[in-house]
């Protein structure tokens, strides 16, 4: 939940608020959980809905300041250093470039990328969570990957 909220909101304080709120909702609505979609999907769906609410509200308020220097710091994200070490280039720069590109994606594409590649959800789980057909999920992912590919072109 924290990873999803931090990746979507790009603000650790707000992400923590969302997680806290989600935990309360999960506790309050626990009796309504029927297990049709799996606990993980249900929990993440609550968090995703809260993130969407926050992002919608953010459109009417001042936008968050840009954190070009370190896109991980403000979002409260960390990366596995061994993965970055595998890369020939400077790991920090590479990961920061990718994170900036993810942050710049449209909301629906960012959500799809985070759910599929960061959280490792299946297409079925994603269609359940997002409430859209599988084709829509795949097309969002394809568009997002095209953008990320372009952004990462210089690091190939």
């Amino acid at each position, binding site marked *: 939940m*924290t*990873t999803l909220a931090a990746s979507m909101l790009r603000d650790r304080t707000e992400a923590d608020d969302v997680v*806290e709120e989600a935990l*309360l909702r999960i506790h309050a609505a626990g009796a309504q959980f029927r297990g049709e979609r799996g606990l993980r999907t249900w929990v993440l769906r609550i968090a995703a809905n809260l993130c969407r609410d926050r992002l919608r509200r953010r459109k009417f308020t001042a936008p968050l300041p840009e954190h070009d220097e370190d896109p991980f710091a403000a979002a409260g*994200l960390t990366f*596995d250093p061994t993965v*970055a070490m595998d890369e020939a280039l400077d790991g920090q720069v590479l990961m920061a470039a990718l*994170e900036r590109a993810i942050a710049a994606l449209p909301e629906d594409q960012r959500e799809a990328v985070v759910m599929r*590649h960061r959280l490792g959800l299946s297409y079925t789980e994603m269609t359940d969570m997002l409430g859209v057909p599988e084709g829509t999920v795949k097309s969002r992912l394809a568009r997002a*990957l095209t953008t990320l590919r372009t952004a990462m072109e210089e690091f190939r």
Partner: protein
Amino acid sequence: MSLEKNDERIAKLIRATHAPADPAVLARARARIAAMGESSEPAWVRWLARPAVLAASGGLLAVTLAAGGWMLRSAAVGLVETSGTIETVAISDLLGDDGSYGLAFDESGSSESTVGDSGSVR
């Protein structure tokens, strides 16, 4: 690098990033859940106990008491004034112009009346 390999690489890098959960968030959520459990009284009681409702109730009570007191005072004063007037009117009505109670004052002191009990006139 082929397109597929490049996508795999990007996916691998995306997967390597995560946000560790903050234990303080869990503690806060736990405390809030515990606080919710403690307040087991019905929702309407909790609604009534809200500061805004309590303040409004207090204000309404004060206004009602003030209005009630004012009305009681007005009624008491009105009653005294009205009763005094009634008394004055009643006595003045009973008194004739000469200050008597409407009965002719016989100065001769004669006790004979012009009309007898039998109704005959002498």
